[in-house]
């Protein structure tokens, strides 16, 4: 197992009397990790601590082995794309990226071409490069924000709601860029409200609620850990009642709901660990065509709802 890129131990963060994070401990592993939680869950606070903008009130948090606050070697390996839309309104994208690139330690001779390459990578149209940032639409702002985060080739990219304001095609493009970066070895921590976007991107997730970590790790591990929440499957087949009878006799079911006319069987499984290895042979034994199998509660959205009790 790879060493964690972010380690938090008993981290708390107060804002006066308000508690932003409440004694949280977690490890974030390499790869793409989704950070999900409702508003006020503490996502932004956590991201600001990770990017060295805030300090924990107590506990320790290390990023790539070091505390990020006022630590340039760690900050040099970080790329950050904030949720806020604000940009220096009077600058043009290349000017802004050039200034930030110099601050990131990019060589003076190369900073211009690197800035251009970053803007091209996030697919900001070249015709827009001459406009001031204040004239940019929400989607264009997201792209230029992402460009400044990736231009210095960070090892860890922290993205706070990077898909906000993008049209579906733009979201797809950003998702592709993130996948490319991940394939090149960049670790990505991405927070988003739109869970459907995170689903295809992230195998690992961390769910925050009320300043506490509700669950963290690979999605299927989190799902398996919810022992009081039976696994539910929906199957479209020729004879749902016959299939239900077979499964029931095998002692696999907690309950089922068969719709013979629609050819649909929804059932809750008693012991998922024991059931899934047998599932293929059970289907063969039933001797009928299965048209579709759908997991009722494995999606990120249902998992999130279950974990946060929302």
């Amino acid at each position, binding site marked *: 197992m790879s060493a964690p890129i972010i380690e938090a131990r008993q981290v708390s963060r107060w804002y006066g009397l308000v508690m932003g994070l409440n004694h949280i401990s977690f490890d974030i592993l390499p790869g793409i990790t989704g950070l999900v939680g409702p508003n006020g869950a503490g996502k932004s606070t956590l991201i600001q601590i990770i990017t060295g903008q805030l300090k924990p009130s107590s506990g320790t948090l290390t990023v790539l082995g070091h505390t990020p606050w006022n630590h*340039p070697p760690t900050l040099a390996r970080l790329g950050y794309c904030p949720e806020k839309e604000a940009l220096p309104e009077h600058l043009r994208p290349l000017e802004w990226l050039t200034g930030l690139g110099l601050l990131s330690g990019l060589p003076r001779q190369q900073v211009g071409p690197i800035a251009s390459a970053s803007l091209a990578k996030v697919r900001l149209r070249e015709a827009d490069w001459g406009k001031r940032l204040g004239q940019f639409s929400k989607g264009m702002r997201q792209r230029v924000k992402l460009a400044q985060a990736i231009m210095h080739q960070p090892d860890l990219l922290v993205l706070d709601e990077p898909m906000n304001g993008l049209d579906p095609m733009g979201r797809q493009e950003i998702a592709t860029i993130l996948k490319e970066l991940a394939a090149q070895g960049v670790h990505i921590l991405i927070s988003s409200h739109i869970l459907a976007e995170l689903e295809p991107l992230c195998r690992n997730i961390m769910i925050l609620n009320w300043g506490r970590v509700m669950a963290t790790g690979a999605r299927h591990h989190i799902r398996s850990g919810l022992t009081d929440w039976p696994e539910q499957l929906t199957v479209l087949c020729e004879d749902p009642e016959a299939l239900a009878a077979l499964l029931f006799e095998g002692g696999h079911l907690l309950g089922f709901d068969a719709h013979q006319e629609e050819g649909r069987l929804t059932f809750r499984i008693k012991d998922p660990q024991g059931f899934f290895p047998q599932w293929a042979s059970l289907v063969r034994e039933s001797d009928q065509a299965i048209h579709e199998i759908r997991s009722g509660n494995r999606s990120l959205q249902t998992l999130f709802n279950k974990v946060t009790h929302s």
Partner: protein
Amino acid sequence: MKAENDSAQGPRMPAAPRHPGTWQSLAGLWCLTWRSQLSWRKSLAILLHVLGLPLLGYLRASSFQSMGGWMLFTIDLYTFLALPLFCLHSFGGLVRDDLQEDTACYTLTRPIRRWQFLVGQYTCQCLWTCIIVALTYLAFGSMWWLQEVEGWLPVMLGLMSVAVPAILVYGAISSLMGLLTRKYLVLGLIYGCVIEFGVGQIPTNLHSLSMTHHLKDLLALHPEIGAHLVRDSAQPWLSLLMLAMATLISLGVGCLLFTHREYLQAEDMSR
């Protein structure tokens, strides 16, 4: 490390040098500073700053009996009133403006120590303010030249030379005020009234606390200006030392504050 996605991309290029040197970080901050000053709104404010008082003086020129009148108008109204207020506004907002506009996170997450960031911002702002102030004195000089005032050039150069320590010290004090409180304008006005205009005018040793007092001592060194300023016992070296100390102490305390204190939304949320 292996990510779970398998896009067909090669390995990354080796990372660029990670740490900006002092000059490079200054270049980056300068790049962000001067370009952001050239918005329409700010350009108009600069134009007003550069031409406002010289034009006002020019229009009032008939009431000045001599170069002395003109000079005292410039010194009293510009060098020791408008210039400190300009410094208070621009240096006080050195970090606060970015925080207010929510753009500080882009620079504060770069690989640069916080004190270096503050000193860099301060240096760039000093440079920018020097340019504006030099333009203003040039505008004053032009008015004097138009009115064929005798001996205007050495006076203008003298005022320009003292403007540099004035910008450094007022800038450092204003930066510290900006880091201490969001209401730095109020704090600055109180400081100005109590220390610069209050204590500074009292003929006791307490007037050493006033930067205006020391700057006037430096101005008095220029014979063309000194003839019009009433100075009892000017001690230029002591004045220079006091100005340097005030600058360094203000900047040092500001750096300590900025290194250890958080300046993001924490402050707002704790209210």
